[in-house]
């Protein structure tokens, strides 16, 4: 099982490399470096949490969606189903590969920011934040892919998702909406949770690890596990059957 999973993860990462994901990640980091070098402005530092959050949420969902729909059009998913590989291994391999590559891409950007802008970062907490947020949203992407007929309609749903969950979260963090009710409601917003966790990775920004931090941590971790067992896994089974032309 472990051996097969490793083969699958390696395969996913190798393909990603073939699709130029690695070189693009490096290029993105380099261009950030150039921008940071030439442009002065304290505000650029504030961009980093936003960039990391977008990568761990929006980009994670989009990436896994594009992979799943591409595998559908190549029918490779059909042949995976008749190997000894279980659906659990297939879902896990997508989850691990996506998380690993996003952590790699994020690490590059963080290094560039730290190198040029002297930010202080709690690497352990940052690692945890990006890991959990990416894994959770990858699972969400797998579930979303199940409900859509093609990638375009999935993109549309991602946009709707980002607007309905992302905008309130930004509004709340800048104080446009406030109050206990909102605070409570937004605790259940995964994008908000991702944001809180990532902000937690920037210690020294006056961040207090309050109950919201721990709630978000627990929410995404436990939520992710529940999502995996009770939603992504059964849905993937159904998705796979659907892809085999039923």
């Amino acid at each position, binding site marked *: 099982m472990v051996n097969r999973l490793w083969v699958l993860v390696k395969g996913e990462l190798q393909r990603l490399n073939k699709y130029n994901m690695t070189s693009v990640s490096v290029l993105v980091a380099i261009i950030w470096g150039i921008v940071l070098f030439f442009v002065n402005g304290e505000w650029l530092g504030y961009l980093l949490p936003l960039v990391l959050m977008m990568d761990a949420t929006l980009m994670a969902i989009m990436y896994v969606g594009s992979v799943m729909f591409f595998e559908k059009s190549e029918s490779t998913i059909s042949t995976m189903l008749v*190997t*000894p590989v279980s659906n659990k291994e297939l879902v896990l391999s997508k989850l691990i590969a996506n998380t690993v590559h996003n952590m790699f891409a994020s690490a590059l950007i963080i290094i560039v920011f730290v190198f040029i802008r002297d930010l202080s970062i709690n690497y352990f907490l940052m690692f945890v934040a990006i890991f959990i947020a990416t894994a959770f949203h990858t699972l969400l992407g797998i579930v979303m892919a199940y409900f859509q007929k093609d990638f375009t309609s999935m993109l549309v749903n991602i946009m709707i998702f980002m607007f309905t969950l992302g905008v309130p979260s930004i509004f709340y963090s800048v104080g446009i909406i406030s109050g206990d009710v909102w605070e409570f409601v937004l605790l259940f917003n995964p994008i908000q949770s991702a944001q809180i966790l990532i902000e937690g990775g920037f210690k020294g920004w006056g961040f207090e690890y309050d109950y919201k931090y721990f709630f978000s941590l627990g929410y995404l971790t436990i939520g992710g596990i529940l999502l995996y067992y009770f939603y992504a896994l059964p849905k993937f089974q159904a998705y796979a059957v659907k892809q085999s032309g039923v």
Partner: protein
Amino acid sequence: MFKVEDLKYRYPKGEADVINGISFEINEGEIFGFLGPSGAGKSTTQKILIKILGDYRGEISYSGKNITEFSDEFYESIGVSFEMPIHFSKMTAMENINFFLKLYKNNANVEELMKRVNLWEDRDKMVGEYSKGMKIRLNIVRAMLNNPEMLFMDEPTNGLDPMNAMILKDMIREFRANGGTVFITSHIMTDIDQLCDRVAFIVEGEIVEMDTPRNLKIKYGKRSMFMEYKENGKTVGIEFPLDGIGKNKEFLDLLQTKEIETLHSGETTLEDIFIQVTGVALKNGE
């Protein structure tokens, strides 16, 4: 090898069963053809047999054990060849093969297989650059990667030129000769005729006919002899009952006195049987 008893299946949102209680047995070392018009339930049945679709009713056993009791080892022992291309187009054929190979415990001799289907020379080409026929041949290699005991083939010769179709048919026969069992679904009746030990016709989720191709041809053929001969520069056709033909005076006379152009017994082709069997059944269903 496979035993299917009273198999019924209904799609989750379907209103009626698409498989209406079919039973059949695939014997070890035989090539079993599964024929029927589109939408008759061929691929649904195949998907149930290869454990892609669950939630069926009825009993299916493989090597004497219910298929629901198998886990990974089931796929270790079967190979499935799909009709559509199933490889990562941005990887070379060998990269694809090596990836799939690692998922199995048993590994076939890839070089031999690839050479057999004439792909060894092109093994380092991207699959995206392969022609349709090459992709199909690669599918067959993919299906046999794990040295399976049982092969499922969906329209295996569809899209292959006659030369490659022949190579493939030889491979299937050889596979049987080495003790393998094959389940084929196809529309191409000549292939089925040449390959299959037994065939089953499925129409609207029911098996309407199942036997060896030879027996079916005898059953559905007319017991007659059709003769064409030349008379006054024109071709004349005449039909005789096959029973007692050796004593049929008119037949023997013509045979001795006329210039015979063709002489056929009334046995039919699998294609005619297909049309007859599926057509009749469709009418009954109305």
